[in-house]
C-alpha cells in the first residue's frame, strides 16, 4: 500500500493555450493515419501470433512475412459489391457503420503519445497529444458509448434475425461491462485528483497506478475485453450461434467499417489502460534514472507504443488461449462479480485515502484500525450459519422405455434401466 501514501500529489496538465489550428489539423490527420495503419498491422499481428500459438505459419505470402496481407484484404473489400438488403431500413442501415467507425476514431484525441516535443528544424514545441481538457476521460467514455449506437442500429436496421439478436446481446454486454469499467476508473481519479489524461500520466511519476490500484486494474482489464466484444467475450458475433452477429447483413466497405471499428476500439482501450494504469508515455525505469533523458523529447512515444502493443498482445494471447463463455455465465460474471468487486474497491480505497490524507491518522493507529475492520469483516464468516442442504431429490423411477410399443427418451426424474452389458467382463478388456 505504499503507493497510497504517494498519492494525491497531482500532476501537470499539458498546455494547449498557444496551439495554432494548423497544428491541430496536422495532428488530427496523423492520428487517423496512425490508427488506420495500426489496424492493418494489428490484423496481421493477431493472425501471426495466433498462428504461432497453433503451430502454423499464418499469412506469409504477400509482402515480407505476409505484412501486406491485410492491405490486400482491405483493397478486396473496397472492390466488392455493395449489397443493400431489401428488408433493411435504408437510412439507418447506411448510417450505422459510419457511426461506428467515426466514434471509434474519436478516443485517440485525448490520448497523450508523449510529453511536449519539438518539431525538428524549427523552434516550435507542442504536446504530443491532439487536445486535453479537465474531463478528458469522461469524453473517452462518451465517445465509446456512441460506438454502441453503431452496433445497435446496424443490427436492428438489417431486418434480419441474426443481426437483431447480435445487436441486443451486444448492447446488454457492452453496457454491463461499461459499468465495471467506469467504476474501476474512479480509483484512478481519486489518486490522480483529475480526469485530464496528461495530468493522470504526470501523476504517475513515482509509481504506475496498476501497482497500488491492482484490483481496479484487474477489473478494467477484464471489462475492456468485454467492452470490445473480443474473445472470450465475443458473444455478439459468436459465429457458431449468430453467424456474424450484428454485421451479418453487411458487405463491402460497410462491413469493413465495422471491422475497422472493432480493431480501433481494441487500440483505444489499450491506449486508455496504458494512460491510466501503466504510466502512459513514462519510461519503464525508476523516476530520475539517467536524469530526464528517457522521459523527454520523442523517446516517450516509443514507450507508449511498446505498452500499447503489449496490451494488444495480451488481447491476442487471451484469444488464443481461452474459450468463449456461455452468455448467461458472462452476464452473471459481470453483474455479480465485477461490479460488486469494483464498488467494494472504491469504498476501501476511499476509506484508506481518507484515513491517510484527510484525517492524517498516525501509521500505527491506521494499521490497528485496518486490522480491526478486517477482523470485523471476517468474524461473522466464522459463525455464518451453514447453508441448509436441499432435500435430496427422490430416487428417480426406472422407466420402461418400451411400455407404449416404441422407445421414448426418459423425462427429468426418470432413468433408464441399466444396460444388460453394464459391469460385465468383456473379452479383451484388461480393466
Amino acid at each position, binding site marked *: 500500500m505504499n503507493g497510497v501514501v504517494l498519492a*494525491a500529489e497531482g500532476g501537470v496538465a499539458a498546455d494547449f*493555450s498557444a496551439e495554432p*489550428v494548423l497544428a491541430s*489539423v496536422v*495532428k*488530427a490527420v496523423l492520428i*487517423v493515419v496512425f490508427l488506420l495503419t495500426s489496424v492493418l498491422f494489428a490484423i496481421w499481428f493477431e493472425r501471426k501470433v495466433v498462428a504461432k500459438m497453433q503451430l502454423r505459419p499464418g499469412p506469409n505470402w504477400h509482402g515480407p512475412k505476409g505484412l501486406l496481407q491485410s492491405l490486400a484484404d482491405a483493397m478486396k473489400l*473496397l*472492390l*466488392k*459489391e455493395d*449489397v*443493400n*438488403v*431489401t*428488408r433493411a*431500413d435504408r437510412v439507418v442501415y*447506411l448510417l450505422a457503420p*459510419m457511426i461506428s*467507425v*467515426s*466514434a471509434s*476514431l*474519436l478516443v485517440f*484525441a485525448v490520448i497523450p503519445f508523449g510529453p511536449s516535443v519539438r518539431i525538428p528544424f524549427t523552434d516550435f514545441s507542442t504536446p504530443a497529444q*491532439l*487536445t486535453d*481538457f479537465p474531463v478528458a476521460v469522461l*469524453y473517452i467514455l462518451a465517445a465509446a458509448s456512441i460506438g454502441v449506437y453503431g452496433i445497435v442500429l446496424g443490427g436492428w*436496421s438489417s431486418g434480419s*434475425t*441474426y*443481426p437483431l439478436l447480435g445487436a441486443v446481446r451486444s448492447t*446488454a454486454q457492452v*453496457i454491463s461491462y*461499461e*459499468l465495471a469499467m467506469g*467504476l474501476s476508473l*474512479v*480509483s484512478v*481519479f*481519486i489518486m490522480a*485528483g*483529475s*480526469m485530464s489524461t496528461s495530468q493522470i500520466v504526470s501523476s504517475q511519476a513515482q509509481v504506475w497506478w496498476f501497482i497500488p490500484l491492482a484490483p481496479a486494474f484487474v477489473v478494467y482489464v477484464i471489462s475492456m475485453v468485454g467492452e470490445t466484444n473480443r474473445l472470450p467475450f465475443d458473444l455478439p458475433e459468436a459465429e457458431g450461434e449468430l453467424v456474424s452477429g450484428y454485421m451479418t447483413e453487411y458487405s*463491402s*466497405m460497410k462491413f*469493413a*467499417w465495422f471491422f475497422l471499428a472493432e480493431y480501433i476500439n481494441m487500440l483505444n482501450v489499450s491506449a486508455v489502460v496504458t494512460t491510466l494504469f501503466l504510466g502512459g508515455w513514462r519510461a519503464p525505469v525508476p523516476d530520475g534514472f539517467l536524469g530526464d533523458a528517457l522521459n523527454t523529447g520523442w523517446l516517450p512515444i516509443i514507450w507508449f507504443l511498446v505498452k500499447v502493443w503489449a496490451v494488444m498482445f495480451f488481447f491476442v494471447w487471451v484469444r488464443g488461449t481461452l474459450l468463449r463463455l456461455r452468455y*448467461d455465465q458472462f452476464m*452473471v460474471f459481470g*453483474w*455479480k462479480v465485477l461490479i460488486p468487486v469494483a464498488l467494494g474497491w*472504491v*469504498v476501501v480505497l*476511499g476509506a484508506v*485515502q481518507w484515513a491517510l*490524507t*484527510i*484525517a492524517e491518522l498516525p501509521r500505527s493507529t491506521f494499521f490497528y484500525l485496518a486490522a480491526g475492520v478486517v477482523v470485523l469483516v471476517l468474524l461473522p464468516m466464522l459463525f455464518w450459519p451453514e447453508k441448509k442442504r436441499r432435500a435430496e431429490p427422490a430416487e428417480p423411477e426406472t422407466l420402461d422405455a418400451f411400455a407404449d410399443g416404441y422407445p421414448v427418451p426418459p423425462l427429468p426424474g426418470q432413468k433408464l434401466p441399466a444396460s444388460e452389458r453394464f459391469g460385465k467382463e468383456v473379452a479383451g478388456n484388461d480393466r
Partner: protein
Amino acid sequence: MNPYLPILILMGIGAVLALGGVGASAIIGPKRYNRAKLDAYECGIEPTPHALGGGRLPIKYYLVAMTFIVFDIEVVFLYPWAVDFTTLATFGLVAMFAFLALITVPFVYEWRRGGFDWV
C-alpha cells in the same frame, strides 16, 4: 485555442473518411442483381417474417437496460467526488458512502429477486 476545437476537426475527418469509404465502394464495386442475394441471411427457404418491427426480444434485455441506467448514474456521481476527493474531505466521503449504501439496497434486492440470473 478552445481545447474542444480539435475534437470537431477529428470528427470532421472521421465523417469524411466514413462517407468516402462507403461512397467509393458503391461506385467502384460491381452491381449484379440477384433476388436471393438481397434477401435476409437465414436458413430455410423463406426467412422469418419481419425481424424488424415484429421482432420480439427476451424481456431480460430491457431489465439490463433499466438497471444500467441506475448504476450509470451512480458512476457519474462518483466521478466528481473522486476528482475533488481531497477538497470535499470528510463531508464528501460521508455523503458518498451514504449514497453508495442507498444504491446497494436495490442492488441486493434485485440480486435476491433473481434480476441478474439470466436463465
